[in-house]
C-alpha cells in the first residue's frame, strides 16, 4: 500500500469545485504523481452543498471509496456547516478556508472546535471579484482556491496548474490564470481569535 494524500473539498453547486478537483488532479499528474478526483452530488442545483475528493499517490492503484479522514479539507464557502466540513480531518492536517476579513469567514475559523490541525485562509471571494470572475452575483472562486491548494500542499506547480486550466477552462482564461497566481501567493496561516 503506497502512501496516499487525500483532499476533501466542500463547496456549493455552481462554485466549480468538481471542475477544480479535476484540474488539480491533472496538474498533480502532470507533475509526476497519480491522482484521482471524484465527486458526490444529488440532484444538481446551484447553492446546494457539494463534496469533491482528490487522492494522490505514487501508485496508480488506489481504493474507490470516499474520503473520511482527509489530510486536507478545503472549504470554498465559509457559510457551510463547520463540523461537517472538518469531520475526520487528520491530526496535523490542513484546513484551508475561503475567508477574508468578512464576519462569515472568521466565524467559520473561530468555530472549528479542534486545535490539532493547521488553518489557512485565502480571500478567494475578494480575488474573484477583483478579476470579475462571477456568474451574475455569484463569485467563481475555484481557480483562486486551486492556487492556494497548490501552494499549501506542494503537489502541483503553478505551471502545471496553469496548463491544466488552459485545457479545461475556456471562459475568461487570462483572468483565471491571474486568479490562480494570486491565490498561490496570498494564502496565509491564521489563528483563531478565540480559543
Amino acid at each position, binding site marked *: 500500500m503506497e502512501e496516499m494524500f487525500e483532499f476533501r473539498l466542500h463547496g456549493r453547486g455552481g462554485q466549480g469545485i468538481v471542475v477544480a478537483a479535476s484540474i488539480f488532479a491533472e496538474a498533480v499528474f502532470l507533475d509526476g504523481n497519480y*491522482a484521482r478526483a471524484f*465527486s458526490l452530488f444529488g440532484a444538481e442545483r446551484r447553492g446546494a452543498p457539494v463534496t469533491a475528493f482528490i487522492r494522490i499517490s505514487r501508485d496508480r492503484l488506489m481504493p474507490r471509496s470516499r474520503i473520511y479522514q482527509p489530510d486536507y479539507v478545503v472549504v470554498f464557502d465559509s457559510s457551510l456547516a463547520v463540523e461537517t466540513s472538518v469531520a475526520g480531518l487528520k491530526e496535523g492536517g490542513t484546513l484551508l478556508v475561503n475567508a477574508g476579513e468578512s464576519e462569515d469567514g472568521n466565524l467559520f475559523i473561530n468555530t472549528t472546535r479542534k486545535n490539532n490541525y493547521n488553518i489557512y485562509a485565502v480571500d478567494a471571494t475578494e480575488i474573484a471579484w477583483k478579476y470579475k470572475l462571477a456568474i451574475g452575483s455569484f463569485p467563481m472562486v475555484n481557480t483562486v482556491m486551486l492556487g492556494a491548494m497548490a501552494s499549501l500542499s506542494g503537489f502541483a506547480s503553478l505551471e502545471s496548474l496553469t496548463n491544466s486550466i488552459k485545457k479545461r477552462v475556456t471562459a475568461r482564461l487570462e483572468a483565471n490564470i491571474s486568479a490562480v497566481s494570486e491565490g498561490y501567493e496570498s494564502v496565509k496561516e491564521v489563528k483563531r481569535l478565540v480559543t
Partner: protein
Amino acid sequence: MPFELMSGSQAAAVAVQRAGIDLVVAYPITPQTAIVETLANFDARGELGGDFVSVESEYAALACCYGAAAAGARVFTATASHGLAYMHEMIHWCSGARVPIVMANVNRTIGAPWCLDPDQGDSLSQRDTGWLQIYCSGAQEVLDTIIQAFLLSEELLLPCMVVFDGFYISHTYEAVDVPEEDKARAFVGKPSFKAQVRPGSPANMHGLTTGDNQIHLIRERHDAMQRAPGLLKSINSRFMETFERGYDVIDSVIAPGVKTVIMAAGATAETVRWSLPGLNNTGLIQLRMFRPFPCEDLRSVIEAHGVEKVIVIDRNCSTGMGGIFAQELRSAIYEMENPPAVQDIILAGGIDLTYEMLKKIIEQEKTEGHLEQTWGVDLR
C-alpha cells in the same frame, strides 16, 4: 501524450469513438449522461466517424439500436437505472433477434425512493435477458472492455452490456492510457456480421412461432453464450499483444497458501485489490464476466488454490434471498468436491466499501465464526 485524465464515462465514450462506430443512439440519464454528452461532442467536432441520433426515450434508444444493428451497423448506446428498466422489453427483443449491440450501463439504484448511489440491481435485474454482461473496476478497464465488447458481441451475435459503478467510476477523473485511433480501429476492424435486413429485399421478421421452434432458438443463444468466456480470452490475448495490457474473464490475486478470498465485481474490486496488503492472508477474485457466469474459471481457481472461504461483495440485494453474486457463486460451486464456504456482504443501496470495513470483515470471522450474510451498514 497517450495518458489523459478523464472520467470513467468519458473513457467509455472515447472507447466507442476509437473502436469505430456507425451509430450512437443517445438518451441522457444520471450518472451516464457524460457518456452520450462526450459522444455528442465528438459528433459536433466531426470526429465521431458515425451517426449520432437523439431519441425520445430509453425504449426508443434500444429500438433504434435494434433496427440499425439488424441492417448491419455497429451501434452503441448507454443508460442507467430507471432508463435500463424502461428498456426491459427491448432488451429481451434484441437478444432474441440476435443483433450485436454494445451498451454501457452505469449502475445506479432503482427507486422508489430516488437514489443515485451505485446499487447493481439495475443491471442484475436484466440477468436473464440473454445479454452478455461484463463488470469493470475502473476507467481504463471500461475503455478497454468496450473496445473488446464490439468484437465479442459481433462474433456471437449477442448484445453485450458493459457495466460500471456510478460516481466511483463514472465521475472519477483518473489517468487513462488512450489508444491511438488507427491502432484501435485496426484492432477492432469493420463490422463483419451479416445484415438481417437490406433495402430492396423486404422481409417479415420474427413473426409468430411455437414453443417447439422457440426452444431451438433459445438453445442456440445458450450455446452462443457458453462460447463467450473462451472467445473473450482470445480477443483479450490479441488485445494484450497490441496494447500491452488486458483482463481475464475473472482476474484473481491469490498468493500461495491463501485460503480466504474476496470476490467482487466493479469498483469495489479495486478497493479490495488496494486493501489486500493490509488484510491478513486474503486474496481477490475480481468477477468481470457475469453473463455467462464463468463457472469453470471460478471452480478451477478455487480448486487450484484450495480456497476454503469466499467472501462475496454484493452491491445489490435480491430481497428475500440476498446478494446476487453470492447466489450465483453458490450454484457454481455446489457440485464441487470441497466447495468453499460463502459469506455474503450486502452493500445494497450502493453504499460505500472502505478498507476499514474490509478489515472488520476479516476480523469478524475470528470472533464470530462463519457468517452467511452480513449487511454492510453493520460494518461501519
